[in-house]
């Protein structure tokens, strides 16, 4: 609830958010560094996939973040549509580039992992395909924001698109998996030889780092968005009121 009251008022948000943005960003970078060190040096090579499995430490958390960021945007869009809260719009808009970046990261690292393991750079595997479609939804969302001439209209249209996308995402995922029943099942958590502590730990650390970085950058982007709006309003106010 304490968080909600900070978010309820843009002015309080601006005065409180800066240290949090820094802490989250720095902690995120540090945690990613630790996780990468664990993944590259401490974790054992996988019995079946050998050292290629190390790619999973950066790949799997980015997939989690791509979905988490979209869920966050959908939540913010709902708040914006129901309570018409300006900060919720800013939050949804600011999370989009970061979410899109994690989605792109997930796609590229997945593709690089796929080549030595599956023997192909791109497989129309159920998961990769649905992440690709999620990436297109992100692009559409960002493009819609940019296409509208006033932020009020853009925010409502983008919120509707985000909610429609969120409702459709499970259906898209289901249909893509039905379409390609040959997709890999969740090997890494089925409890066989490689799901050991030494393998899981780096992944969790990197995921925590990604999450923290996402939080920090989203806060920074929200701050930038609010500052830009204020600058725009100052200019307009001078023109309108002399």
């Amino acid at each position: 609830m304490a968080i909600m009251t900070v978010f309820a008022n843009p002015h309080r948000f601006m005065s409180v958010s800066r240290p949090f943005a820094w802490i989250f960003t720095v902690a995120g970078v540090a945690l990613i560094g630790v996780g990468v060190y664990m993944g590259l040096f401490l974790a054992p090579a996988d019995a079946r996939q050998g050292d290629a499995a190390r790619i999973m430490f950066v790949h799997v958390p980015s997939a989690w973040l791509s979905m988490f960021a979209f869920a966050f945007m959908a939540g913010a869009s709902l708040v914006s549509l129901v309570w018409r809260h300006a900060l919720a719009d800013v939050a949804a808009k600011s999370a989009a580039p970061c979410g899109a970046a994690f989605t792109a990261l997930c796609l590229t690292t997945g593709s690089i992992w796929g080549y030595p393991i599956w023997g192909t750079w791109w497989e129309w595997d159920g998961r990769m395909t649905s992440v690709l479609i999620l990436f297109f939804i992100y692009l559409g969302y960002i493009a819609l924001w940019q296409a509208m001439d006033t932020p009020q209209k853009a925010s409502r249209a983008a919120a509707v698109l985000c909610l429609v996308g969120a409702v459709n995402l499970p259906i898209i995922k289901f249909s893509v998996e039905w379409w390609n029943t040959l997709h890999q099942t969740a090997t890494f958590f089925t409890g066989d030889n490689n799901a050991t502590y030494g393998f899981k730990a780096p992944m969790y650390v990197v995921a925590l780092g990604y999450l923290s970085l996402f939080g920090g950058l989203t806060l920074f982007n929200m701050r930038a968005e609010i500052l830009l709006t204020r600058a725009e309003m100052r200019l307009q106010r001078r023109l309108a009121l002399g």
Partner: protein
Amino acid sequence: MTNAGRFGAVITIDALAAQRGVRMLFEGLSFRVEPGEVAELRGPNGSGKTTLLRIMAGLTRPYAGSVSIEMDDQDAPRHYLGHADGVKPNETALEQVCFWARFFGQPEGAAHRALERMGLKSRARVPGRGLSAGQRRRLALTRLLLDDRPVWLLDEPVSALDVEGRVCVEALIAEHASAGGIVVAAMHGPSLAGARIVDLSAIGPGGPVSPSGARTLG
């Protein structure tokens, strides 16, 4: 003088505020319109007449305050006639009036009567693109006649109309008011007869948008 007549709708506007961009168009606007009254919104361009009408029509949400348009404790039906006429270029005048008659659940006869009343009978077979600006305005005004609704919200109803058209519209408004209906019209130029003036320039323009509200980023 008020006249309950057939209708009995009352408009109550309470502490209404609207913003456009960074400034308030008006703030703390309160007034009441009783049955049989004609309220004329006046004020220079940009004073918020159109926005006020759109808020009353339910198209735009206000920044603060409330509008209630009620009849027998229920939302009263209203006609909104905006700036744009909503005339289709490829449909004839008659087709468009017939469409709106069907839309409001009225028989086709109503459409013919409305066309005649607005002086468009001779233009019935002309497609929208062949009508002049004044004729398009008349065509839009026929919507008021197609469904009997207590509240009319008119945005510059006589713009582009010739003298004869203006007389015709003023007669419509007077008739509606004498039957107990309410007309709220944004106007420039000469006033409507017997209208009560709501001057938006006397209320506003409000100052800059208050930066403390949750709806603005300050």
